[in-house]
């Protein structure tokens, strides 16, 4: 089966109510899918940020597509706070599952391993834990004296969405050192990727390259999207367009400004 699809195919594959895993801003964000997804307008998305969210997350929230968000943080980095996220929080418009980076990784790793939960140090005494009714604290059964330890349930997203430098026609995706993307995809039922380029030779045919490959086994569809992470950067390919992030941050300070930004972006997208 040909795994190569269009960006719109990917957007259409994300249904309402989907638990959607998205990478952090430095790790390969499939920004090119954001506007098509907003156009498809699935509702009640439950976002899982791996382990933090940025502009893509902020836009999905701004567009009203998000019901819950599990994340260690949402920000625009150097461009400041995430305006739509912050607004939605203050209005109580989204349900927050505030987490901490290693808890997101631990939950995804548990799902990767088919395990029901992971144990994790730290967290005891934090308000992060206090507000996570879906976590548990047990007494470590291996300890001789009382030793409370947090259990984090497996995080099993319905769909993982990422952007990577390249894929081959079999559907293998090269992610290099960004192995949290592999964990995210292993943990998810389905995965879609956009890529800078599609290469003709199998990425598994060379052992050096293969070491950085996410196998086709896990990836349902791949769309070509050159510079598809912009305004975020992609390691080894291009840097972040901080000016654009700042432009977005300013525009999205109000709901009206956000909508105007979306319209302009959609118009630019249509003419390019």
């Amino acid at each position: 089966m040909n795994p190569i699809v269009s960006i719109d195919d990917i957007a259409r594959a994300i249904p309402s109510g989907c638990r959607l895993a998205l990478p952090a801003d430095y790790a390969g964000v499939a920004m090119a899918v954001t506007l098509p997804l907003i156009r498809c307008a699935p509702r009640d998305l439950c976002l899982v940020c791996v382990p933090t969210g940025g502009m893509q997350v902020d836009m999905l929230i701004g567009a009203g597509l998000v019901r819950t968000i599990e994340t260690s943080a949402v920000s625009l980095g150097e461009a400041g706070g995430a305006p739509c996220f912050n607004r939605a929080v203050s209005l109580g418009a989204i349900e927050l599952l505030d987490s901490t980076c290693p808890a997101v990784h631990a939950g995804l790793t548990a799902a990767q391993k088919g395990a029901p939960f992971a144990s994790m140090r730290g967290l005891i005494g934090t308000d992060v834990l206090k507000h996570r009714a879906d976590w548990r604290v047990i007494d470590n059964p291996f300890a001789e004296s009382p030793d409370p330890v947090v259990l984090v349930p497996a995080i099993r997203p319905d769909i993982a969405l990422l952007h990577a430098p390249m894929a081959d026609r079999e559907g293998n995706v090269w992610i290099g050192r960004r192995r949290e993307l592999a964990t995210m995809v292993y943990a998810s039922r389905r995965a879609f990727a956009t890529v800078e380029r599609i290469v003709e030779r199998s990425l598994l045919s060379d052992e050096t390259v293969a070491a950085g490959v996410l196998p086709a086994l896990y990836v349902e569809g791949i769309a070509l999207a050159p510079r598809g992470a912009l305004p975020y950067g992609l390691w080894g390919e291009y840097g972040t367009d901080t000016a654009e992030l700042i432009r977005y941050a300013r525009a999205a300070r109000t709901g009206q400004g956000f909508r105007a930004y979306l319209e302009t972006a959609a118009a630019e997208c249509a003419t390019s």
Partner: protein
Amino acid sequence: MSTARLPEGADTAAEGAGTPVSAAAPRELLIVTIARLLKGVRHVAVGASSPIPAAAAMLLRARSEAEGAPPVRLSILGSVQHNFFTNGSGELFDCAGQGRIDAFFLGGGQIDGHGNVNLVGTGSYPESSVRWPGSFGSAYLYFVVPRVILFREEHSRRVLVDRVDFVSAPGSSAKGIYRTGGPHALLTSMGVFMFDPQRACFRLVSMHPGRSLADLRAATGFDFDVDPALGETPPPSASELALLRGCVLTELAQTYPDFAARFHTDLARKGAADPLDRPTRSTDPLPAPRT
């Protein structure tokens, strides 16, 4: 640890007297002070947006190299040059959990007198009146990194509060709670506090030039102890300044070009307004772990 003092520079200003250097800028004092707080660590991790801690770690490493001391490993998250990790963004936390990271930095929208850190927001939760990005890795790293240095330039009652509104990471834990790490010191634009984990409170050990105890009390929202030997934060030595303005600045420019450029500019127009007093955006409690 409860009796820890801010270590003074191993060398004195006189030592490097042969090298004529201009007086230290406030930012240089911060860098040198952090480098001293890091003395003895073998592996420091620094957030992607933390040029001052990074510069301090680079300075520490340069000094260790010069002295033939054991090498210092510096991991700057998000850097290519200083990224020794190959297992994705989870590796920092794994590495810390394995006990392989000796020091880390945390900022905080709020820091209270018990060393609790808030990176989430003010007011009630979840509908915070001011929302910051989130706890990042603090709720874990604060427990497992032995020497966490709280670094926040803004020294005000807004930041240094009596009780944080949300505990992203607690300064201390009850007996029996697994904890191999925690706060070591708090550094601001006004002074240096050491943390006493037994009593879960801060002790002011030095004030930066021009600051008085009254200034500090006025700007601090929590009670703190005062070290009997309270004095001025020791200035950078000539050799520290030479390293900092030389090889460290060059190295820093590779990872933080904008910061290094500003640093250069500030050096050029000595005596300009203290850059430490610039307000920090309330939505951006950096340096926070950006991973």
